[in-house]
């Protein structure tokens, strides 16, 4: 009976449906994502005025029969994508329609998908802190290198300047570590990149995602403590017409402004030299054992004293010296405007089953130093196939870079007022290594010429460096079920580099070395242990990397209410580098022949007759870098409103000399996001999009150079050791049994909102990072056998805010865009378990003071200048004092004056882009606030030892009363190290670094091939870009540019065009 009833109902139903079908034929279509062309399974199709509905299958296909004759459109919706309405008329016209859905968020073609390197996460599903830098922003700045493009356009990312930046060029959200790997991890096409970043052509980059917090970065584990930069190269698009892009630009960089460096005047320096000469300071140097080189003024005074030149001649020469500045000489004869050319061609597109991107790029840079240039050629070919109904995905990527660098000129070594050409326009002789008297005394002998003429050294060398970098990426993904996919990814990386430096016999360096070892027998005959001929140094390195990853990903959509996305897998990395160096003496470049030398024997070298062996240029070295990791990542979305995420990872590496059980470190994170605007109770028209998110987790950081055990380096004794050629082991570091990995705990809270009509997009984040067991280098008592020691020593805390604001105040997107980045970072030391020393705090700016930022500016307490002598006054026992030794000995870390953080606490940028018709102008202003720097000042110890010093010399105290207008002390009679220490490190010379900088401006004219025009290309653009335009405001009155104390950053102007076909 039941069975019968069921059958009846089914029949009725089918008749009903059939009845409807007789009215309407099914409409078929396929729904894909607009950004990547991939099918969207589980999208809901509804007729706009009826009951019929359908859901797309795993290939994005659907078939729907509208039930109501009133319906005239289909509404297609999918979580995270904008609802789309398509008219039935349009759909019926095609046999199978392709419907593209755009992601929520920024409209019209700008979709935010964050690439983590493991998976792509649409913004909706992301709980962590991600910043995306899109293609347009990447291409805004003109530069050869990729990393430069991120400067001042990426929230939370700062390019560090100042003396400590050498080791630490980029920081994301402040620095969580001191010495362990300070660089963010760079991921390219899903794998870490271990090669030089200069090898990536920015034109090949599709998007860059910066992962800033634990949730974002813990996916990458041990090296993600400083943030992760994920780079995706262009891949074309499925079902996309072929697109050809041609980009070409030329960038002109001005010569470095050497004259801007704060050096004291030449004439004042010469006066000091005269004073020292009068005191007899140089007497021990005129004929010393190494025949020291002396400045022209000192030589002239000596010649005059010896009666070799008249007083009139001396005065003439001294006057001429005062008019010369060797920096001007360098600018005139060795520097030029650098011209960098960049050309690239990209072709991408795709069919239903295949997408591709092909590119070729060439950069030719003629460097600022005459005779030096470098080139880079990049070639990339990226293919992806989606077969068997999108079940099987295969990807193959080849990226090849060839880079070369050429140099034929070495920067000359000049004293402050040496000339390159004399008054007759002939090459001038400069004292180098030895005095001119010494060099000239060999002219009648068979020795090679000892003299140094910088002008003759131009173009004399032949130095070249070639590099070939190949990356082959292969991926295979197979959908085991509709929701489970298995992927295997493999990358092979190879980098070969070789350099060849040839210094012919005519070059100064080679002549000097040959002469140095020339032996004179009792009868006067010469023999040459270093034979006549050139010197050739070659170096080869080969780095090979194999990276493999196996990963399972699950993407399940349960009744459109529950969505689960998860990945789990393991990966392995093995990078090996081999390096070798050789040197050839007596090298004849015409025939490629070199001559043997005796490395075992000690020779008496000229002129000091000391025993030395001939320097060897041979070496072989190797590096092995291995990693094994296990990872898992999952997110659960409830009704597209709530997202829960979690990730965990375990890393193990062959890091050296760590107890085996300490090799692996587990790291994890978890997150939560709430899409408020999806809630039923939410109905604001003003703010159509509102989202909250929070994450919590642990990152780790690793210092590959550190070991818990004592390590030693095997080397060969050389130089003037008593046992040359002997193999020995040099101790590198003492044992550190308590060595632990650094851990960083991060909490991140975020708010994203959009105002209606896209007038304003705001992303506001608050983060709190806790760094534990940070590794740093700190001073230890020399009685341990070491002066410094690297180990775990501090816990720090940093909190901050990152704000990204995009506003379009004039309703329409295209007229005025304001992009405002604001970041605030507040760092402080929580615990420090090493003794603090005054030396450490003043020399390295690392402050072991609880409650203060880790990088802080401190100064010696200052009591001004003595009104009668101009001597600097410090504080001793609470009173002003000039007992410099006692001050130095008795000042404790608590006595030092704290002035402020060394790194900017607030930084960001304001970028305005205005479109007027086809023209646009975009200007970027960056700002750095809330930090201090130590201003350089004159060093009297250097000056009184005959070396030129800082221009503060001109504002020094000279007579009573001057102490009211200057802090620069008088020049002492005799150099006094402890007095100079007080002067250099006084609190009076620490200044605020706050400034606002006009970073760059870009102008362009865009052409679109619209209906009216008949252009050979689809769209095009000509543009101009100017960089480093100058400081708009600064807090310090005594510094032209707070971040660049010596030479201002180089200004450049680029012109270029881009065509799309």
């Amino acid at each position: 009976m039941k069975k019968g009833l069921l059958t009846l109902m089914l029949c009725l139903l089918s008749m009903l449906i059939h009845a409807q079908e007789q009215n309407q034929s099914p409409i078929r279509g396929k729904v894909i994502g607009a950004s990547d062309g991939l099918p969207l399974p589980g999208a809901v199709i509804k007729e706009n005025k009826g009951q019929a509905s359908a859901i797309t299958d795993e290939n994005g296909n659907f078939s729907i029969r509208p039930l109501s004759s009133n319906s005239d459109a289909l509404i297609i919706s999918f979580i995270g994508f904008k609802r789309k309405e398509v008219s039935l008329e349009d759909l019926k016209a095609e046999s199978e329609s392709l419907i593209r859905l755009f992601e929520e968020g920024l409209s019209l073609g700008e979709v935010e998908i964050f690439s983590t390197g493991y998976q792509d996460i649409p913004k909706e599903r992301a709980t962590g802190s991600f910043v995306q830098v899109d293609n347009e922003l990447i291409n805004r700045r003109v530069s050869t290198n990729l990393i430069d493009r991120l400067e001042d356009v990426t929230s939370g990312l700062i390019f560090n300047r100042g003396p400590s930046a050498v080791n630490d060029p980029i920081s994301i959200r402040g620095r969580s570590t001191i010495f362990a790997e300070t660089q963010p991890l760079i991921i390219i096409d899903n794998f870490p990149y271990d090669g030089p970043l200069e090898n990536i052509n920015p034109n090949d980059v599709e998007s860059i995602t910066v992962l800033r917090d634990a949730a974002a970065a813990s996916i990458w584990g041990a090296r993600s403590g400083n943030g992760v930069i994920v780079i995706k190269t262009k891949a074309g698009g499925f079902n996309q017409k072929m697109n050809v892009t041609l980009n070409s630009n030329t960038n002109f960089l001005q010569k470095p402004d050497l004259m801007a460096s704060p050096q004291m005047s030449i004439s004042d320096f010469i006066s000091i030299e005269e004073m020292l000469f009068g005191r007899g300071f140089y007497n021990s140097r005129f004929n010393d054992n190494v025949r020291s080189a002396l400045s022209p003024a000192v030589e002239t005074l000596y010649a005059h004293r010896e009666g070799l030149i008249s007083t009139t001649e001396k005065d003439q020469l001294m006057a001429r010296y005062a008019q010369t500045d060797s920096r001007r000489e360098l600018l005139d004869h060795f520097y030029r405007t650098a011209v960098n050319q960049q050309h690239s061609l990209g072709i991408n597109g795709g069919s239903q089953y295949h997408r591709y991107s092909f590119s070729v790029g060439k950069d030719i840079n003629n460097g600022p130093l005459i005779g030096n240039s470098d080139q880079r050629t990049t070639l990339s070919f990226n293919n992806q196939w989606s077969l068997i109904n999108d079940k099987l995905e295969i990807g193959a990527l080849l990226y090849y870079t060839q880079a070369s660098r050429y140099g034929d000129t070495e920067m000359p070594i000049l004293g402050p007022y040496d000339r390159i050409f004399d008054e007759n326009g002939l090459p001038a002789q400069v004292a180098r290594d030895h005095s001119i008297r010494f060099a000239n005394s060999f002219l009648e002998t068979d020795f090679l010429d000892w003299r140094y003429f910088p002008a003759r050294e131009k173009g004399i060398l032949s130095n070249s460096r070639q590099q070939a970098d190949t990356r082959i990426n292969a991926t295979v993904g197979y959908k085991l079920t509709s929701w489970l996919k298995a992927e295997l990814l493999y990358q092979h990386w190879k980098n070969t580099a070789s350099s060849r430096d040839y210094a012919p016999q005519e070059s100064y360096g080679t002549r000097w070395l040959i002469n140095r070892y020339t032996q004179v027998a009792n009868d006067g005959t010469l023999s040459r242990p270093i034979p006549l001929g050139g010197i050739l140094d070659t170096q080869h390195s080969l780095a090979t990397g194999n990276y493999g990853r196996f990963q399972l990903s699950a993407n399940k959509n349960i009744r459109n209410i529950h969505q689960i996305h998860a990945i789990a897998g393991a990966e392995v990395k093995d990078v090996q580098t081999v390096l070798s160096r050789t040197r050839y003496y007596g090298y004849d470049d015409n025939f490629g022949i070199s001559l043997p030398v005796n490395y075992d024997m000690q020779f008496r070298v000229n002129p000091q007759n000391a025993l030395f062996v001939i320097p060897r240029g041979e070496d072989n070295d190797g590096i092995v870098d291995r990693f094994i990791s296990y990872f898992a990542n999952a997110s659960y979305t409830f009704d597209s409103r709530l997202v829960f995420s979690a990730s965990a990872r375990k890393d193990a590496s062959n890091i050296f000399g760590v107890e085996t059980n300490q090799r692996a470190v587990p790291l994890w994170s978890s997150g939560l996001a709430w899409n408020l605007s999806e809630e039923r109770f939410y109905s604001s028209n003003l703010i159509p999009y509102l989202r909250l998110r929070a994450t919590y987790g642990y990152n780790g950081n690793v210092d590959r150079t550190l070991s818990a055990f004592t390590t030693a380096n095997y080397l060969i004794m050389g130089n003037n050791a008593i046992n040359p050629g002997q193999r020995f082991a040099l101790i590198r570091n003492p044992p550190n049994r308590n060595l632990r990995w650094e851990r960083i705990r991060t909490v991140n809270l975020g708010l994203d909102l959009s105002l209606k009509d896209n007038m304003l997009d705001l992303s506001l984040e608050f983060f709190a990072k806790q760094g534990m067991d940070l590794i740093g280098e700190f001073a230890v008592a020399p009685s341990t056998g070491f002066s410094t020691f690297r180990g775990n020593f501090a816990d720090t805390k940093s909190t901050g805010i990152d704000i990204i604001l995009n506003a379009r105040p004039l309703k329409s997107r295209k007229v005025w865009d304001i992009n405002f980045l604001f970041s605030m970072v507040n760092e402080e030391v929580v615990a420090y378990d090493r003794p603090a020393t005054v030396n450490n705090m003043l020399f390295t700016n690392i402050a072991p003071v609880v409650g203060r930022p880790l990088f802080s500016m401190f100064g010696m307490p200052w009591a001004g200048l003595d009104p009668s002598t101009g001597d600097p006054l410090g504080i001793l026992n609470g009173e002003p004092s000039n007992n410099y030794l006692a001050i130095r000995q008795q000042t404790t870390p608590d006595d030092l004056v704290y002035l402020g953080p060394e790194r900017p606490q607030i930084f960001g940028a304001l970028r305005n882009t205005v479109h007027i018709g086809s023209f646009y102008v975009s200007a970027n202003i960056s700002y750095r606030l809330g930090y201090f720097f130590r201003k350089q000042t004159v060093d009297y110890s250097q000056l009184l030892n005959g070396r030129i010093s800082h221009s503060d010399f001109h504002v020094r105290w000279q007579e009573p009363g001057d102490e009211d207008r200057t802090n620069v002390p008088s020049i002492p009679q005799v150099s006094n190290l402890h007095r100079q220490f007080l002067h250099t490190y006084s609190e009076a010379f620490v200044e605020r670094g706050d400034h606002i900088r006009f970073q760059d401006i870009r102008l362009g004219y865009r052409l679109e091939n619209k209906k009216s025009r008949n252009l050979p290309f689809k769209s095009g653009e000509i543009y101009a870009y100017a960089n480093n335009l100058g400081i708009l405001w600064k807090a310090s009155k005594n510094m032209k540019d707070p971040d660049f104390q010596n030479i201002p950053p180089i200004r450049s102007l680029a012109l270029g065009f881009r065509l799309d076909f």
Partner: protein
Amino acid sequence: MKKYSISILLPLLVLMGCEGFLDERPSKKIIVPSTLDDLRSILDNTSDFNRGINFGIILSDDMVSTDQGVLGFGNDWEREAYKWSNDLNDANGNMSAWNFPYLTIFRCNLILEIGKKLSPDNVRQIQELNEIIGSAHFHRAKSYYYLLEFYSLPLRNVDLQNIEGVPVKTDTDVNVLAGRSVASEVFDLIFEDLEKAVSLLPDWNNNPIRPSKASTYGLLSKINLVLGHYEEALENAEMALSLKSDLMDYDEIASQTVLPLPFNRFPFASLNKEIIYFEEMGTNSFVTSPLSFVSPDLISSYAENDLRKDLYFSKSSTSENYLFQGHYTGNFQPFSGIAVDEIMLIRSECLARLNRLDEAAHALNTLLEKRYRKNTFQSLAFDNANLALQEILRHRRKSLVRRGFCRWSDLKRFLGETWWNGPLGRTFEGNEFSPGTDPGAYQLILPIAEVQANPFID
């Protein structure tokens, strides 16, 4: 699902099986020292182990300079040293006289720690290990002795338990610091170390770069001399000489050298046969400056045919003064190791102090025979202990010019002797400087870097 499980698990299993994968050393040249060869290679770093301290040169009365020479010194602390200041801190608050010995001490402690864990297989290895351990003890004792010579008060005829010494470290843990031990404790360690060295080292291995019994006895005799223990010093000296007593013949060398000695010519061979233990000192400007002269009173004390004057000194081209070039290193670096002539002089001095005057004379004559032009030397004979001592000490000064810090050590140990009134001073910019006879003037203050970083030292 089942059929897929294998393909998923297999790669994971493979990965987990590769434990050795992570054991590979990250860099070819870097190792954790653990074998016998590694320890030997650590010792072969002559820059760390065979390095002496040059403070003694400028802190002695053998050297004198002009105002301009002093002004021309490269560092401020060198000028302070010329004035015999106690504070020789450089610009960073460091002193090489402190840092170098402790650097060596760490390495010795490391070698001893690792050496304890090794178990040699055969006779050759046992010998090698003994020599390595013995060397470590030797170098450690030597380093502590050097530290005391500069940072403690004079050590002769005093209660060593009341004299401030230096921190003693016998472990490699950088986290463990120590305050200043008293001198007696430091000497306990020194003598313990040297006893062990004597028992482990070979008599004489024909390689003066490596320590031997001969060099250990030599060092013991120097230390006992400084402490005023003349009997022990004599015994040690004789033990050393019984193992090595070759002397260079200065007459032979003079015949092969261009005389008068030109500037920058070093007449002695670099590892000559007189050296028992090779050590050289680094050069600061006061060492190499052509205005760093030998004290005129010393120069005038040499007799007519004394070849030491001819081979050690070169007349300056700019003045009547002489420069020192008789380095036993054969190079521009001064020699600070132990040589036969010094041990012979110790022997002679001890014999004189013990009133064994004939033997004292004989010992001195053996040395001086090889220092004078052939057939010009007239043997000495002593009949008065005081006069004998003075004569021996004069020859000691004439032989050991710029020899390590021998003269500085002598200036310290002479204090309190009835016949000693302190060294001749030096003038600089019109002022006279001399350490005089106050023991406090012969002790350097500790480096600022140590005081700041060591909570046990104030």
